[in-house]
């Protein structure tokens, strides 16, 4: 799990699956992303083939907290079959989802 900066955007790149074994680390890392001074946050899931409902809860929680702090968290790169999971939980109704990090960066540059 790596956090880095690209222009005005802070990106958290997840490189592993998120299971019961590492969901606490994911929670801590997402909190670090939220605490970053940047207003524009990306959670990049392009290398993630598996995440559990605990991870979904953490993402939703941080997205709402970001809004409260006048920041915005978006998700990029959701892979199949995880895209089905995100449709079931209707995350697109309260946060933006992009195919790639580049699309999300373009979105933030226009806002």
């Amino acid at each position: 799990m790596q956090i880095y900066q690209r222009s005005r955007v802070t990106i958290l790149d997840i490189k592993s699956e998120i299971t019961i074994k590492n969901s606490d680390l994911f929670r801590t890392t997402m909190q670090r992303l939220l605490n970053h001074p940047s207003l524009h946050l990306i959670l990049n899931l392009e290398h993630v083939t598996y995440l559990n409902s605990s991870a979904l809860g953490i993402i939703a929680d941080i997205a709402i907290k970001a809004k409260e702090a006048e920041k915005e968290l978006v998700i990029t790169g959701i892979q199949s079959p995880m895209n089905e999971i995100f449709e079931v939980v209707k995350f697109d109704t309260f946060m933006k989802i992009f195919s790639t990090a580049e699309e999300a960066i373009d979105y933030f540059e226009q806002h």
Partner: protein
Amino acid sequence: MKFISKRIKTKEDIFSAMTVTEELANEQEFSIHDVIKMRLATEEACTNSYEYCRAKGMSYFLIKWSATPSLIEITVRQKGKASFPLIEQADVNTGLRGRGIALMVHLMDKVEIRRRKNCVELYMNKWKGE
């Protein structure tokens, strides 16, 4: 037909159960996507029972698998009468918890609660190619 059962006491056991599901589904040549879905349903079902058992001071619960080339069945059995609310959520959930059951219902072909004399079972199955 292949049968396996396992006693789950720890988070490490849950991860091990996820691996059993993955290996069984791979052996039966289910698609990669179906393997991922069954592995996730296993984790969600086990996590649900794990948290219930911890809250009630129970030390373990059971998980059983039955596998054929066309069908995989997974049953999680816990003592007591607690139910799993198999209700589709109409509203969007922006909270930390409460998505596991909805995911299981979506990921598997069949999910049902079976009440036994002194226990409750969560039964789920998946057919190849469904």
